[in-house]
């Protein structure tokens, strides 16, 4: 999957659910509609839960890139 250009990024590895989603949400609140946030989370539960909550709030998950250090989620703010 192509890597979208991110306007902002945060590293939430080691941050448990649902705190990682809440921190993602607070960052998205500061951004403009259409801007892209890159979130780096641990694999497993966080990589499944954060995108689910993002979409439930109406934002768009552009890409989910699995890397050696974690999973990069690219989110377009609604």
């Amino acid at each position, binding site marked *: 999957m192509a890597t979208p250009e991110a306007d902002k990024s945060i590293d939430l590895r080691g941050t448990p*659910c649902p705190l990682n989603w*809440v921190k993602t949400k*607070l960052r998205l609140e500061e951004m403009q509609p259409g801007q892209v946030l890159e979130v780096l989370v641990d694999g497993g539960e966080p990589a499944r839960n954060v995108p689910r909550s993002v979409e439930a709030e109406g934002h768009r998950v552009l890409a989910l890139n699995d890397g050696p250090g974690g999973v990069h989620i690219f989110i377009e703010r609604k």
Partner: protein
Amino acid sequence: MEQVYFDHAATTPPRAEVIHAMLPYLADRWGNPSSLHATGVRALEGMERARERVAALLGAEPDEIVFTGSGTEADNHALIGVICALREKGDHIITSAVEHHAILHTATFLEECGLRVTRLPVDGRGLADPGEVRAAITDHTMLVSVMHANNEVGTIQPIAEIGAICRERGVLFHTDAVQTVGHVPTDVRAMHVDLLSLSAHKLHGPKGVGALYIRKGTRIRSYLHGGGQELGRRASTENVPGIVGLGEAARLAGGEMSWEAGHSAKLRDAIIEGVLERVPDVVVTGHPRQRLPNNASFCVPDAEGESILLGLDLEGFAVSSGSACTSGALEPSHVLLTMGIPRETARGSLRVSVGRDNTMEQVERFLEVLPRVVARIRDSSPAAHPALR
């Protein structure tokens, strides 16, 4: 009669915006922030937003902020938590003799537990000497704790200088910044602090909530034991409405601090100048320049501070004598005595601490009322009538 509040060092009125921000968390966002479901997450959102705002005010990272139940708890957590974490390193802590009782009594408790405590003196203006901190540090020193500004006389300590010495010597440094956060800049990086305590109600937030800044990587144990709240650093379900209120107070302070400090300093200077002019023999306590913008403190010889306080209260002015915590106690303030002020003079201590809602008209009225109140007390005091002594 209009009540004029000149006791902002004791507590500050909560801002309307703070109350407004808290209300949803007392009503429909009542969830437990540790719960994984949506009700919990709504509370968690408010709490984490507050954490970011407090962190921003201190120039810290959000994860470096631990919410507590008060400034006193934050102080206890800092001292006891570090001592428990560094037991193998030594048996010695350094503090100043003019700290708030939240530090002084905790230090005494630690002494009773077998620790050695050095209490540094201050000069006549209430200032600690960084050179004395350097000289007091030994290989067994675990922590230095010096307050940012004194709650009674308002003297602001050279915290950045002390912090730099501690960092150079590899000793942890804590500051009780309860009087300064939200009133003067408190950038934790610039101050070289590892730990910093604050209290919401001193910056127009609610009571029952404070915070401890813990620099990333600092070795410290929990103070309250139980659940895994605050990432395992402080057990107990968080006071979410209070924390949200603190967050809003921090956000407001960040934007308005410089205006508020300027406004308060004008009133403070007018009070100091006016009192010196109109009350015979009065002494200003604290540092002439390095002092809180809202603090005017005095000693009025031949008059009990408590009597002045009560006399002013009857005239509609709320002030303090010494610190609010010691009002009512017969002993003069430990701060004034450490500064070398004679016991008799220290009995006439008076603290006037202004805030954002005070006006110059209120100050002018105060300056008309105070000399009358003092004269009345002096006239009826045994000191004025040697035959009655």
